[in-house]
């Protein structure tokens, strides 16, 4: 035993000397839409995960199906990561244009593996410090397997060699991917393509150019996207009606549920538009079904009308909104945080709503369940606000704990309880603002669900006093809800005087920026706002009071979180905005350098 450990530590020492002790590696796969960039990256991501490493991917896709430039970064690390970093170590390029586009992103000592067909010589200035390898991927694929599509598996074989991945892991993934759907022959061809790539790479790549990843124990973890985690959360929470209209980047939630819900006796409906989607969910929820919809950008705007109805009629409903770049159609496949204020202050009239912002994959799962419970407990719409970055990209996450899931239906009455009530009032005035709820079909529960202002029994009422009491009853629910929603989380050194505030998918780059600042002996802490509404006033005020400098990090132009914060708390501190509204999420380096710059470091 001692001997093995000795050998292992010797190896590690040798690797350290040779600067090959890799603990974090980024592979970018770039080409044209239709090249299979996503497929290749997803296989690689899964292989990294099974190699025992943590994974975070980042897709930078155009919003079309074929032809335009696309790239997908698969980052792997020994530590939990939540996004991409500033540089790339390995670039797998399916064409010349991909190299030219991304050569500047490649780190010193990086490797470029490209499809040699049609690629000329690179200028010396571009080549400097990097290794270039050409392989005729498409040609090999055509000649050996009769179809160019096999270039992806050949490339994966080459990466398996370059990164010293366990080929058995890859073979297993091939089997899982193709055996059921395409049969044995396709599995065999892909396995052969993998071996061919491996051998090709062995011929052309020198040992010192390799980036070997040391295999770790694959602990009980998952690898999935935020959309998948939300869909899984919905299933676990008892969502049994999902109504939606196709829209990027929220459609994956629905497609996943469309496949799985029926076997849990649930139903998925593709509606004619987003107006119908939310109204249908409201109709089902009125009759006791846990119902949900998911949307993005323009669809969210169309849902605003029914959002208000759910607030007024006090119908629980869950809306997953994956933010994409706007305004208008914007860029449907890119991440942004431009819809925050719309969900908090948007739609006509004033009504209570709950807005949660998961920052990790695990939170995507847990907050979805939480959203269903909160919606029912407070009989109002609950919004899960995410971004394309977390919704569509893969991340490793610790295994979800299904045992601790609680389903809380709030004041929903059963028939027995309802029969004991004299003079049932659906909108009864109560201390916490939440009234008992009966369902159509139940005896002794007759009521009208009314979008007009109404009295306790649900009937239209324009009396001024009733209006005041009813408004206060509805809004009172938020006070109770604020005790129940996920509270903000503080990351980093609690004594630090530099504070960062953010929400959602900026969590990853913020945490890494903090680590970078830490290396420069700059201590910082991060207030992750996990509930945006009701706003965590007290916690935010305490955090602000404990800082000398506060930076708010957001993926938008106008600083919506910053506006929200300033409207909700008392502080003399001037917060500084770090905003990004380009097509890519933040890189950690962008945050850390801006913070240093603003502090005059």
């Amino acid at each position, binding site marked *: 035993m001692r001997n093995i450990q000795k050998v292992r530590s010797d190896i590690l020492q040798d690797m350290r000397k040779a600067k090959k002790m890799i603990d974090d590696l980024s592979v970018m796969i770039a080409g044209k839409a239709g090249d299979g960039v996503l497929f290749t990256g997803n296989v690689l991501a899964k292989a990294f995960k099974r190699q025992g490493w943590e994974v975070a991917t980042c897709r930078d896709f155009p919003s079309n199906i074929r032809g335009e430039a696309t790239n997908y970064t698969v980052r792997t690390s020994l530590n939990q990561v939540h996004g991409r970093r500033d540089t790339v170590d390995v670039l797998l390029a399916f064409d010349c244009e991909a190299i030219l586009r991304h050569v500047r992103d490649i780190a010193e000592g990086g490797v470029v593996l490209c499809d040699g067909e049609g690629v000329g010589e690179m200028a010396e200035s571009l080549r400097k410090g990097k290794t270039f390898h050409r392989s005729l991927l498409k040609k090999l694929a055509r000649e050996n397997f009769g179809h160019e599509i096999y270039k992806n598996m050949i490339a994966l074989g080459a990466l398996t060699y370059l990164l010293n991945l366990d080929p058995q892991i890859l073979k297993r993934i091939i089997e899982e991917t193709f055996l059921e759907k395409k049969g044995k022959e396709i599995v065999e061809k892909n396995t052969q393509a993998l071996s061919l790539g491996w051998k090709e790479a062995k011929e052309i790549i020198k040992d010192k150019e390799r980036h070997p990843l040391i295999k770790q124990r694959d602990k009980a973890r998952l690898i999935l996207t935020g959309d998948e985690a939300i869909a899984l959360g919905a299933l676990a929470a*008892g969502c049994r009606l999902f109504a939606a209209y196709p829209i990027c980047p929220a459609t994956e939630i629905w497609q996943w549920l469309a496949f799985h819900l029926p076997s849990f006796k649930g139903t998925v409906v593709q*509606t004619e538009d987003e107006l*119908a989607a939310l*109204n249908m969910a409201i109709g089902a929820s009125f*009759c006791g079904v846990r119902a949900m919809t998911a949307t993005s950008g323009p669809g969210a705007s169309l849902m605003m009308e029914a959002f208000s109805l759910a607030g007024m009629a006090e119908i629980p409903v869950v809306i997953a909104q994956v933010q994409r770049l706007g305004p208008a159609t914007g860029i449907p496949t890119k991440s942004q945080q431009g819809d925050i204020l719309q969900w908090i202050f948007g739609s006509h009239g004033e009504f209570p709503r709950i807005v949660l912002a998961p920052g990790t994959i695990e939170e995507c799962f847990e907050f979805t369940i939480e959203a269903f419970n909160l919606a029912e407990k407070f009989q109002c719409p609950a919004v899960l606000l995410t971004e394309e970055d977390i919704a569509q990209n893969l991340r490793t996450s610790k295994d979800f704990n299904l045992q601790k899931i609680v389903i809380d239906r709030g004041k929903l009455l059963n028939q027995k309880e309802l029969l004991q009530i004299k003079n049932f009032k659906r909108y009864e005035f109560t201390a916490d603002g939440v009234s008992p709820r009966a369902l159509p*079909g139940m005896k002794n529960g007759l009521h*009208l669900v009314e979008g007009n202002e109404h009295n306790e029994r649900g009937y*239209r009422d324009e009396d001024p006093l009733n209006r005041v009491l009813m408004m206060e009853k509805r809004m009172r629910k938020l006070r109770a809800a604020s005790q129940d929603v996920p509270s903000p989380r503080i990351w980093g050194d609690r004594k630090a005087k530099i504070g960062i505030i953010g929400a959602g998918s900026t969590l990853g780059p913020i945490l890494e920026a903090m680590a970078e600042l830490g290396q420069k002996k700059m201590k910082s802490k991060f207030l992750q706002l996990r509930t945006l509404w009701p706003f965590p006033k007290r916690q935010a005020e305490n955090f602000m009071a404990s800082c000398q400098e506060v930076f708010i990090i957001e993926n938008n132009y106008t600083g919506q979180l910053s506006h929200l914060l300033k409207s909700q708390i008392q502080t003399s501190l001037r917060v500084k905005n770090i905003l990004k509204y380009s097509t890519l999420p933040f890189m950690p380096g962008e945050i850390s350098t801006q913070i240093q710059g603003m502090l005059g470091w």
Partner: protein
Amino acid sequence: MVNKEDFHLEDPTWCPGCGLYGIFDALKRAAASLNLEPEQTVVITGIGCHGRVNNYFKSYGFHGLHGRVLPVATGVRLANPGLTVISVSGDGDAYSIGQGHFIHALRRNVRLVYLVVNNQVYALTEGQVSPTSPFGFVSASTPYGSKEFPLDGPTLALAAGGTFIARGFSGEVAHLAKLIEKAVNHRGFSLIDILSPCVTHNKANTYDWYKGHIDKLDEDLSSNPQDKMEAWKRLQGSEKIPIGLLYQEQKPTFEELVLAEKEKPLGLVPLEVEVSRIKKIMEKFQ
């Protein structure tokens, strides 16, 4: 045996002479004759004068947004197919702002009754032109006469795959009550476009005008019109407006096709976390 007054919650306060009184009466008569139970019935209404039906008719009710009656009604049917769902819209609600939902509910064939109170005018907003107003209609919004041609709900329904297409007249209460009964018994989406005079804002299409223009197809509704071309001809060809059942066919309902839970209403199935089954699904993410 239930009486029609069992469904009477409150006396309506529509304008005296409004066509809605006849419709309200016909609805109560049909409900009584069908032996419906108020607690097993949901009336879903849109925005317009018709929307007050919820305040007068005794049942569970949902009065939501302008034009969104049918998506809500579909949600209700999916949640509890045991309920009798009667949805009510105006011509603006159904054929203008809710038009998109209308044709899709038809093609889905959700089992519900859709009463479209067609008074050919926007009444609650004080008399603007509606999609069913005749060409040249002078209204608050068209003082020089409407320059748009009207659309016809039943014709549209026929094209969109409707399985029960009928037209009634609020001045023919007994006939309308029979139509509603037939519609409730129809396994699928049943449209009744109801000609209904607005005594305040539509001085053109009055009771007398309708009496001179309607053509009752079948007094006792015993016929079973299954010929689509015949229905088309009736709707397009005659000088007069046909009332009665225009077309009916049998198709599976949306609920029958999509609901996996057949025994219990989805909304009443107790929720439990099926840990082992979900765990199995999660294996795909390993």
